[in-house]
């Protein structure tokens, strides 16, 4: 049997709202993925954790407005570490007009408020099978 999808989930930087990110972690776990919730972390620490855990997916949540700065920084640090196979997902409160910038910067998908869990689960599975 193939190993389960390995996901590292983080709260980005100082953002304090852990409800959503922990919920997504629980739902991904229930969907059979191997999920590590690392709590509040900065880009360097997230990349470090992704490396150690041999992650397929990095999920970052922020409701604090740091998506364009710390979010994009995480993607470029992953590229720098030649971990381009790791798909980056973001969620939280992210203004729609910022989403194109995140996607152009290498974020695989951005899920805003009201996204059904199934959409996230399927989005991750699809990103792995491609």
């Amino acid at each position: 049997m193939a190993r389960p999808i390995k996901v590292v989930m983080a709260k980005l930087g100082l953002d304090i709202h852990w409800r959503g990110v922990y919920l997504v972690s629980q739902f991904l776990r229930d969907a059979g993925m191997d999920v590590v919730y690392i709590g509040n972390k900065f880009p360097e620490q997230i990349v470090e954790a992704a490396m150690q855990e041999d992650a397929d997916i990095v999920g970052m949540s922020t409701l604090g407005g740091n998506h364009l700065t710390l979010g994009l920084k995480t993607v470029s640090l992953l590229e720098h570490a030649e971990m381009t196979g790791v798909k980056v997902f973001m969620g939280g409160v992210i203004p729609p007009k910022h989403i194109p910038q995140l996607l152009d910067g290498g974020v695989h998908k951005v899920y805003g408020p009201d996204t059904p869990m199934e959409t996230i689960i399927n989005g991750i599975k699809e990103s792995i099978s491609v």
Partner: protein
Amino acid sequence: MGREESKKDVCLFSQDQLDTIKSGYDDWFNNVLKDNDRQDELSGKYVTHSGIPIRMLHTPADIAGIDYAEDIGFPGCAPYVRGVYPNMYRGRPFTLRQLAGLGAPEDCNLRVKYLLGHGATGVNILFDLPTIRGYNSDDPEAEGNVGHCGAAVDSIWDIDAFFKDIDLGAISTSVVTHLPSTSIVIPGMYFAVAEQRGTPKDKIAGTCQNDFIMETCVGSGPEILPPPVSFRLQCDVVEYICENYPRFNPISYNGYNLREAGTDAVQEVAIAISNAIATAEELIGRGMDVDKFAPRMSFFWDLHNDFFEEIAKCRASRKVWYKIMHDRFGAKNPKSCLMRFHIQTAGVTLPATEPLNNVARSAIQGLAAVFGGCQSLHIDSFDEAYSAPTEEAALVSLRTQQIIQSETGVINTVDPLAGSYYVEYLTEQMINRIFDYIKQIEELGGLVKAVEDGWLHREIANYNLKYQKKIETGEMKIVGVNYFRAEEASTQEIEVFEYPETYTRQKAKLDRLRKERNRQKVDESLNVLRDKCHTDENLYPYTMEAVKNLVTLGEIEELFREEFGLWTFPLIS
């Protein structure tokens, strides 16, 4: 089906009447209701958000055990179910307290003046994440968050700028410092500014939040002080402010954010009151009289979707508080037993989809808050799921409050829903369930211990999973999101507040401050504070001294982290 036999003698209704009502109910249930409706009622699927059974029809039989004088009473009188003041809103309408705080303090100053100019009578000042968690704007940890979601405050200069040309003796300010570790610093900056401007201490009105549950549980962060330390700072703040600022509430037990993080109405109130119990025990242990601090304690509730349960929660919480202060702590001053609370409508109920619908949701929640007898109210804005409110959205919220207050007539009589069989039944149920949950926490060794052990975090996580599953399956309906979803999702463009220049402005100010301040005084005040951390002394006088000497928020917080160490958030795998 078994109806609960009343424990007491019949009080509100004569036995004859009650017998007639009970047999009338049975007749109605068996002969008037259709078979399907009877099955529906017997299914037990109708419960409030927190799980209290709801009957299809509530009758006097549900509240037959209530003794009006003892259990409900009169407003302004024990047990305060009907309200904390005798004439309630006729005498003192709820304060229209909207939030202000975005970007640099200079931007916020304009927002505060705007709100005061439109009839607001108090302001909430919110801070950006670095300020909330105690980092200076130019700290590497603050990167990406400066000026977002609230104001950046690094030093006493920022508080001065925030309130430029505003008389601190004429307004009531809620300084929303969630954490005890920042509540021991930022309100101190506010007091110090007032002192420099010559405003007398007894004119300073307001509140700070100062809740160790916020520091350790509700909000997560990269560096968290251990729960007992945060709790000690919380008590230091209460003690110091009670001794020095008679019109400033040193603590607002934050049920709100707890609820938003993930609890039901019972847990929200029970956990907040458990924290108040712990504080009372600590302060009494320090030699303080309960009547010295209890009158200054205030509470902060969420007003969620379940309209009647939320109203019942508000009414119930006042009685629980009265019982605890009066019966358990022996408070003599009636004010010690008055639970005053601020309400904010539930941000968590406001989706991003079709945002204008949120005006309706928030108005209904706001109305429930008024039926619940809140002392002040903040109505969330329709753009809640996008950013802190824009000026347009904030004005709609303020106007919603004014409409409830001035157009609907609901404030003309006290506690208008009293006597509703359903509301009184729910109120009694809430009271019992809140007491049960408080007892459960005490059996775990008290709230500080329950937090340290990760119990509360698990309670929150379990609740959220249950709640979210109801949304995913559609059992909990959210109009426009999982119910009556539009074919074409609304693409309404919501303007978002951004202050990209805040960082640069704060950085420049910090550079100037570091150049201009007296380094020797800075070091002295930091060294004294460092030593005092390891004594039983109250730290407030020493943080006050430090901020007057232009020590920054970040420097004080860093000192706390060094001296007290860090704690790992329990849910991290």
